[in-house]
């Protein structure tokens, strides 16, 4: 701000001179457009303002001073106008800035989240297994939970006097003594084999997974439940051997646990397969170096399998001299507990949202 000659201003009355001196402070004290407008009125307004009064006083000032004083007043007025304009720009841009801040969302505040539920971890694992086997051409077959002895036992070469048939192991219906709650997903095998037997030659083979709920008469405790889940798999073709079972399951475990998943097969016994085997995978937790989960062995048992027993094919009306195949079955809870280290099976059936949220998701 260029100020006029102070000698000239000293000719003004005291109150005006003081007002002139106060202007810069008053200008910077203006925090809003209203205040600025009021200040503008006081200093440069048309009537009664300081500049108007100074022009008035010029009329009555001594002639020899008029020229100097007039010039000084003009300079002052111009300075004030420039100052007011500059302050106006400042205030306007400040207001703009504030407005934009007011409308902006603080990105560090919690945003409204779309609702997030979850699939049950057991379902997720079963879905994943289906995904793993889809590229090999497996589809999903399902069967009822209330089954006949014929499908649950007879068709699977399970002897008449096998303990699993007893009422201590299997739930039977009160009014239908031949109906039971399936004890495994294997009756789906029997149903599919029987259904497809007549068209097997035309189809060229069978491949499917059968995930589902099964029931056994176990009391509820940290490792047992009277209802649990299995995923069964079956393939029928010509010339199918143990090497095909091994190749299929080795692929599946790599797809499930990663490319380094190693598997090992041990002989075992199930009435519906021959030869039978159990498969271990390298402990998913320690990777095989030995830990609590694998009891230090580096291996954990993951499923039972084998080549379909010729009697099972025969009962379904399929000639075991022509057709052969393999079947495998996995306990879903057991595997889920192992991979997640869930300490208690009951957590899967308690349905606490905190558990479901932590263990679930959508994949």
């Amino acid at each position: 701000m260029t100020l006029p000659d102070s000698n000239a201003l000293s000719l003004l009355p005291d109150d005006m001179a003081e007002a002139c001196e106060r202007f810069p402070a008053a200008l910077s004290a203006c925090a809003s457009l209203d205040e600025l407008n009021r200040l503008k009125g006081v200093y440069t307004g048309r009537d009664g303002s300081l500049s108007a009064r100074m022009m008035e006083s010029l009329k009555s000032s001594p002639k020899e001073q008029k020229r100097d004083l007039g010039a000084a007043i003009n300079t002052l007025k111009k300075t004030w106008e420039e100052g007011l304009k500059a302050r106006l720009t400042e205030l306007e841009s400040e207001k703009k800035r504030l407005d934009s801040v007011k409308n902006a969302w603080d990105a560090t505040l919690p945003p409204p989240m779309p609702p997030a539920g979850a699939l049950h971890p057991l379902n997720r694992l079963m879905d994943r297994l289906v995904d793993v086997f889809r590229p090999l051409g497996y589809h999903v077959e399902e069967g009822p939970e209330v089954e006949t002895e014929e499908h649950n036992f007879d068709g699977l070469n399970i002897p008449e006097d096998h303990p699993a048939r007893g009422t201590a192991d299997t739930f039977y219906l009160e009014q239908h003594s031949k109906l039971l709650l399936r004890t495994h997903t294997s009756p789906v095998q029997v149903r599919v084999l029987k259904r497809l037997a007549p068209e097997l030659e035309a189809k060229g083979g069978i491949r499917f997974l059968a995930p589902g709920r099964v029931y056994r008469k176990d009391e509820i405790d940290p490792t047992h439940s009277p209802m649990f889940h299995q995923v069964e798999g079956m393939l029928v073709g010509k010339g199918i051997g143990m090497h095909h079972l091994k190749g299929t399951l080795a692929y599946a475990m790599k797809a499930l646990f990663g490319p380094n998943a190693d598997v090992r097969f041990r002989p075992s016994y199930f009435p519906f397969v021959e030869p039978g085997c159990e498969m271990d995978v390298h402990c998913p937790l320690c990777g095989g170096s030995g830990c609590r989960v694998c009891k230090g062995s580096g291996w954990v048992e993951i499923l039972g399998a084998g080549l379909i027993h010729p009697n099972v094919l025969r009962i379904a009306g399929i000639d075991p001299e022509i057709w052969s195949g393999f079947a495998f079955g996995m306990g879903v809870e057991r595997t889920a507990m192992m991979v997640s280290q869930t300490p208690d099976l009951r957590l899967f059936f308690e349905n606490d949202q905190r558990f479901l949220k932590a263990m679930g998701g959508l994949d």
Partner: protein
Amino acid sequence: MFLSLKDLHQELPAVITTSVGDLSDLIASLGFPIDDVAEGEHGPVLEVDITANRGDVMSHRGLARDLAAKLGKELSTVDLDPLEEGEPLVQVRLEADACALYSTAVLTLGALQSTPEDVKKFLASLGSGSKDLAAVDASNELLHRYGHPTHAFDADKLRGGIVIRYGRAGEKIVTLDGVERSLTDKDLVIADDSGPIALAGLMGGENTKVGVDTRRVLLESAWFEPRVVRAMARRHGLHTDASHRFGRGADPSMARIARDLLAARLKAWAGASLDGAWTEGQEPAVAKPISLTKELLHRIAGEPLSIEDAAAILRRLGCLVEANHLSLRAVPPSWRHDLSLSEDLAEEVLRLRGYDLIPSTLPPVKADPEPLAKDYQKRHSTARRLASLGFFQTVTLGFISPEADAEFAGTPAAGRILGNPLGYEYSVLRGSLLPSLKHAAEHNLRQGAREVRLFEIAPTFHTTSDGPEEHSTLSLVWAGETGGLDPITPKGPVLPAALQGVLAALGVPGAKAEVQTLGGGLLAAEVAMADIPDPSERVIPNFRGFSRFPSVERDLSLVVPFELSFGRLAEAIHGALAGTPLHTLTCVDIYRGKGLPEGHQAWLLRLIFQGDRTLLGDEVDGWVDLALDAARSQKAELRG
């Protein structure tokens, strides 16, 4: 089964230098995983998991025999002192087919008897302590060492001759465990003139028990039909070391040998002298020969194994084998009841070679892959949809209490009741999923959850004369308070309308989308999966034209009596505007506050018109007037 390493070494010296870890792996590779290894006074004891088909390995000798076959090593020799058999001292009659062979001997015990210390330690290491009775301890030791169960009766307590027969209705026996058991005609018993004195293959009777005062013993070493023993064990809930072995099939050729070994131990441990030994019956028929072709072996093994190698393996297992280069015929040894098919032989060959040698490859299958079934896809996509709408999938038991079922199920529970449930509260196959979901929701609320959103997709069971029919069902429960978790979304109670919206989003038709209130602020719905539309056959449906001309939107503010439903009003308006380009009619606001006549509310209706040309203001005004007339016919009035 418990296996003392020291005593395994005794049977198979070749593995003395094998480490416990390597031996465990070796045994597991034969099909018998090791559950645990314990270190005791008698040395390491392995807990071995024996498969149900292999009674023959349920002893130290038996497992050693399988290992010896695997390793191609020799078992140690057993000192045998066969008893000279003569005329029966007591008459033994075999009346039931289920007992083919009954070998026995009578011995008089000396004044002193003691079980050797190492035998006591052996028994203790297997969790079966010494009874300080030579006959009992020796029988136990033989069972664990050689696998054949034997029994000793107090000969002086026997009344008359012995008969092996089926039980008779009304007969009873008190077994050695002190339990009185009622017999049926399916129970095979050893009886004397006084009645049953033992349950064959399970347990002896209290009345002929050997004690400290016993002077003379009658030894029993027999072969009982596995099926009969299994059924008896199950019927009486009496699973013993003997029943496990007879039930899985004992070796009939061991009957005499076990008797002789038992007698020899009594002579050595109790100064016993032989009064006489004899055998009734004979070993059951020798197993039939089984053939195995090179072709089948190749198919199962995945590589062309030689028949000569297979024959050598089977011989190591005790089979009598004849072979040429294309096939073999094998007669299994007397202890291998599990071998009857060609596939069984193939498995034995692979088992002894080691499953790790089997090649690994994906199978060639000509069959075309099939798509996933519609029902499966629908359940899957519904579950995913609900999870992304904020619902948690639950898994609950399929059976519930009769009371819980009755509260929600549409049909009576009869026909859905379990005959042998775990308990009353698990006795009915549920007719509705809601009781289980309600229970889960209440659990979550008790645990302090602000909002609970649960669903389950599972079968519900419905009574028919042929048994329960299963209907795939979806249930949802929503409770608590929603929103209020961020600075923008207001908090509020869960409203039935919101659940209705979820059902509508799933495509459930309005008539089936009933929202129930379960008390405690729980909102619920249950719909049959069949009522949710199937996924479309086609990825992309047929093209349907749509108008690119601007739509015209008009709001109509009405005062309506409470009795009028939106559905009825909408129907009236749609009826009146049939043929006009009315595209959407909806209600966008409801007001029930002050300033309205008693018994009325205000609705803000929105009508959207869209045609295949630009609509004129005047014509739209005309349609809105028609809509208003229709509304008036339903006693709605324009709000002033």
